[in-house]
């Protein structure tokens, strides 16, 4: 089964390095955000699977001709105290590495989930005290704050969209609708699950280019998906104006910064200026979003989308196929 482990290793390397770099540089995802999202998910899943699979298959190789008989042999060693002398140190090392990586990925996923849940619960607690329900919108809360802010807080049946009265002052009714449909699209399409999975993927393997690129791409793609959903309810100039007003209005005027009670505290970087202009990660994504709305490109052709989706499907089929292939061929 050596050849299967080498093929899996090759796939793991391609999915960890060149493939995500190529996809993150491609321009077509803006024309088919959903397809691109599926492709990112399959790159991450297939990448993890082939990393683990390559080490496992290679490590089990001395114990059998295929994965099943080799696994049975390995269990015999563990449980029935069979002699382990067929296994070299390197093999034991590879098997342990595969097991550890698997445990690491799963536990990071769980720990990230717990951390996010705790942050959300705390945030929701404070919102309950500080906000009031919007007059004519279900599942929408209004909070008293001068900066124009809108975001959503996922939580199953208790999911809410939050907006500041600063935002309501700046936007017309139609523009506000654009913002609210955008946010509720995030909730309906369960974007928080994607963010969760890719955040865990990144904190599990931060040194891997794919995890960083994937996370950035995914957080950009969900904005595009939500924009597309908003465009089904409001026209494009309205959405663009809403983005532009919130984007430019979000810059603090001097008096806001002075009014911000936390701005005085030198220990914390909490001035509204830092809040809104800080960080460059979001910048590219906003520019991308706007140019996509202002100069719309035709969506990918059916054939191109089919091609991308089949690639995604193939990526998910190949690693398991390689795992069982020696058995079928043998």
């Amino acid at each position, binding site marked *: 089964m050596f050849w299967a482990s080498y093929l899996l290793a090759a796939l793991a390397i391609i999915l960890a390095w060149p493939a995500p770099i190529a996809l993150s540089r491609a321009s077509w995802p803006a024309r088919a955000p959903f397809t691109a999202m599926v492709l990112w998910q399959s790159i991450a899943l297939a990448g993890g699977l082939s990393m683990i699979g390559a080490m496992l298959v290679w490590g089990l190789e001395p114990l059998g001709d295929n994965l099943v008989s080799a696994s049975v042999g390995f269990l015999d060693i563990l449980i029935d105290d069979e002699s382990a002398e067929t296994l070299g140190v390197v093999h034991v090392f590879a098997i342990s590495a595969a097991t550890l990586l698997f445990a690491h990925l799963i536990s990071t996923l769980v720990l990230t989930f717990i951390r996010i849940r705790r942050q959300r619960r705390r945030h929701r607690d404070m919102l309950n005290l500080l906000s009031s329900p919007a007059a004519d919108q279900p599942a929408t809360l209004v909070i008293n*704050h001068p900066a124009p*802010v809108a*975001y959503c*807080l*996922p939580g199953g049946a208790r999911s809410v969209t939050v907006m500041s009265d600063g935002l309501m002052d700046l936007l017309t009714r139609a523009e506000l609708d654009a913002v609210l449909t955008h946010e509720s699209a995030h909730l309906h399409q369960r974007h928080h699950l994607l*963010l969760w999975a890719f955040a865990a993927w990144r904190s599990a393997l931060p040194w891997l280019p794919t995890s960083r690129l994937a996370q950035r791409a995914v957080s950009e793609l969900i904005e595009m998906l939500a924009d597309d959903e908003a465009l089904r309810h409001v026209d494009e100039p309205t959405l663009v104006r809403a983005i532009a007003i*919130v984007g*430019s209005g979000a810059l603090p005027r001097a008096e806001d910064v002075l009014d911000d009670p936390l701005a005085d505290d030198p220990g914390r970087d909490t001035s509204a200026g830092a809040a809104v202009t800080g960080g460059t990660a979001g910048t590219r994504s906003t520019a991308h979003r706007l140019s996509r709305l202002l100069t719309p490109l035709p969506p990918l052709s059916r054939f191109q989308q089919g091609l991308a989706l089949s690639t995604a499907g193939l990526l998910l089929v190949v690693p398991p196929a390689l795992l069982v292939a020696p058995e079928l061929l043998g």
Partner: protein
Amino acid sequence: MATLGDLERTVMDLLWATPEAATANELRDAIAEAPSGEVGRELAVTTVLTVLSRLEKKGLVERERDSRPHRYRSVTSREDHTAELMHEVLVTAPDREAVLARFIGSVSEAEAQTLRKLLGGS
């Protein structure tokens, strides 16, 4: 029926409204007198004390222990709490996932200028 969350909210609203510290008894009376909200009814003092100790645990309320009965006050103002909460949302790097997907991410000064131009021109 008012939930514990509603009660917490009512008590915080009262404490935020006055700079003075208040006893559980005073708070109960104030709640009973309040214009009939969902909570506007007679409560047992123990209920108020339960709510207060929950709020204390959350760091929203502090207790003056040198007086009997204990007097409670809010730790900071409503505005400070709001600013802190919004700070969490605004400053959050895009890779923090709890509060998800703000409508607009961080905007650079240059980009904001482009946006303003766009608005002026349209």
